């Protein structure tokens, strides 16, 4: 309950200042906790495609959003929504109360979730964002890429929705005209916020203490692994799925355009008929009829929502980016293997 009032207070502050969010400052141990949860929670082990989520706690200081702690949510979010909304809420409240007792910042600043190959741009994400933003203007979502971690990279990203997009989304269905009028494009839906990592001096000392001697590690082996085919294959198949979905969306759009065209033709025909009728009537000395078709005769054709289209574009863009970086790395690794082989 106190958390809610905190959130409200934070929201109020935001209205007063409205300084844009410039960076997210992660505490080092939060990073480890997120990585651990995303890799080995029940949900992620049962099904490697499942997303796991958790809550971020911290402080909102000027242009920086400090994330000082986090805790995981049980199960996967989808299950929770359908089966036990109340239970999930009580879990959250209990957890917050417990953490407050040990002086953790019990102020929600957003949530984190796992993803595979950066495919986090889905409708659920936007819904969650919008519902978070009702109570908390400045919230952020940290996305941890599990597949990037397997390849020895740090797939960490802080995203939020752009103000312009949220405004348009709240107004209802996104039509092409609205998107154009607002100058929105799929590129401006999500905003990446730079992440900085902060460690207390004590944590830094601890890290120095337990740091293993620097030699080639298993991490290096992961990074230097030559078998990138499976990763590329996965990314390509995702990209393919996206393309298929996009084609369906485009089909919907062209069907809509066809319908619209047919309707306009019908309207034009109707007007033409009326005009001919009117000339006859005028000749007979009668009052001419109005040329506008009566209301209800032509219902406006509903335009398909462009949200999916934009999301798909976003997903494809991020898959492309992954593929680009993966192939570039693969090419440099092949070069290395070439050199190695030549030396033997």
């Amino acid at each position, binding site marked *: 309950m106190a958390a809610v009032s905190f959130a409200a207070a934070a929201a109020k502050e935001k209205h007063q200042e409205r300084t844009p969010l410039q960076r997210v400052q992660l*505490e*080092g*141990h939060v990073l*480890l906790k997120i*990585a*651990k949860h995303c890799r*080995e*929670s*029940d949900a992620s082990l049962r099904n490697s495609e499942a997303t796991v989520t958790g809550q971020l706690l911290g402080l909102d200081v000027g242009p920086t959003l400090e994330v*000082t702690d986090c805790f*995981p949510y*049980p*199960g996967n979010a989808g299950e929770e929504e359908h089966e036990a909304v109340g239970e999930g809420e009580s*879990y959250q409240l209990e957890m917050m109360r*417990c953490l407050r007792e*040990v*002086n953790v910042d019990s102020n929600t600043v957003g949530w984190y979730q796992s993803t595979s190959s950066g495919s986090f741009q889905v409708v659920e994400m936007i819904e969650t964002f919008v519902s978070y933003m009702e109570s908390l203007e400045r919230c952020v979502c940290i996305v941890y890429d599990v597949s990037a971690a397997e390849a*020895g*990279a*740090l797939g*960490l990203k802080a995203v939020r929705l752009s103000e312009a997009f949220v405004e348009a989304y709240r107004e209802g269905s996104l039509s092409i005209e609205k*998107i154009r009028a607002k100058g929105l494009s799929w590129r401006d839906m999500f905003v990446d916020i*730079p992440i*900085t990592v*902060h*460690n207390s001096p004590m944590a*830094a000392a*601890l*890290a120095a*203490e*337990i*740091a*293993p001697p620097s030699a*080639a*590690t298993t*991490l290096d082996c992961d*990074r*230097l692994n030559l078998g990138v085919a499976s990763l*590329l294959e996965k990314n*390509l198949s995702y*990209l393919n799925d996206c393309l298929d979905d*996009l084609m369906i969306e*485009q089909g919907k759009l*062209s069907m809509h355009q066809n319908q619209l065209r047919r309707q306009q033709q019908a309207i034009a025909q109707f007007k033409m008929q009326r005009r001919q009728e009117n000339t006859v009537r005028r000749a007979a000395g009668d009052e001419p009829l109005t040329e506008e078709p009566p209301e209800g005769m032509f219902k406006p054709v509903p335009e398909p929502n462009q949200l999916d289209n*934009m999301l798909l*574009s976003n997903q*494809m863009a991020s*898959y*492309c980016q992954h*593929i680009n*970086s993966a*192939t*570039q*790395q693969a*090419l*440099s690794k*092949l070069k*290395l293997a070439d050199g190695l*082989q030549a030396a*033997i």
Partner: protein
Amino acid sequence: MTTPITLPVGATENSVRVHPGVLFTITDAFLRRKEENERVIGTLLGTIADGVVEVKNCYAVPHSETHDQVSLDVQHHHTMANLQQRVNSREVIVGWFSTGDPDASRNRDALIHTFYGSECANPVHLALDTSGGQDGHMGVRAFVSRALSIGGVELAREFLEVDCEVRSTEAERVGLDLLSTELQEKLPGDMDGLADSFERLQHSLQQAQDYVDAVVAGKRKGNVAIGRYLAETVATVPHYGRDEFERMLTDQQNDCTLVLFLSKLVQAHLALADKLGTMQLPLI
């Protein structure tokens, strides 16, 4: 009739493996401790297999201490244990942690240890020395307790230090590089990581080469074990004929380039669609 004087009870061959995340969480909890407390204590969660206790998670428990008394918020401990259980059912309570010098507070520690003895079979006490100790190190030590008993009657318990190893999994390693500085401005990109790995590989090769050169030149006495390791390593590099290797390399490179081309093509389409504002991929 003779009665044995002392008998060690419980597994003594334990060793403890701690994940770094646990230590960092403890450090954070220590920095956030209550004003009147000198240290923090809390519960360790993890798994036990083959006498190795793997500590994977932990949470702080509020407590208050006086000279020889200690009270623990048992309610808090149980609530948290239940909550954690719902996230990861395989992690069970394996012991407890404290900060500060473990030798300075043995009386009270024994009380806490007895309590955790009722929570799990053979609790582990993990001590993180946040005071810096004498030599300025932040020592990580682990203890188990052993009962001293005469004729089956327990008289006392003693703490026994066991092996403690800080082990990070590969994915954690990525994050660990970020933890050693107080403020890291920029997250490393994918290519940076690869470049680092290349550098380390080169360094290792250089080191091996220098060593071999020195031995061959007679400047250094060769170590048979190292020589054998080097020979084994070289032997594991698969040897292909030049043509065969060339073909494999070209195949792989062609695959990569083709995929790269495809992805760039899609990107170009997307960019074009964006510029035209029609929400349609222009050429597909």
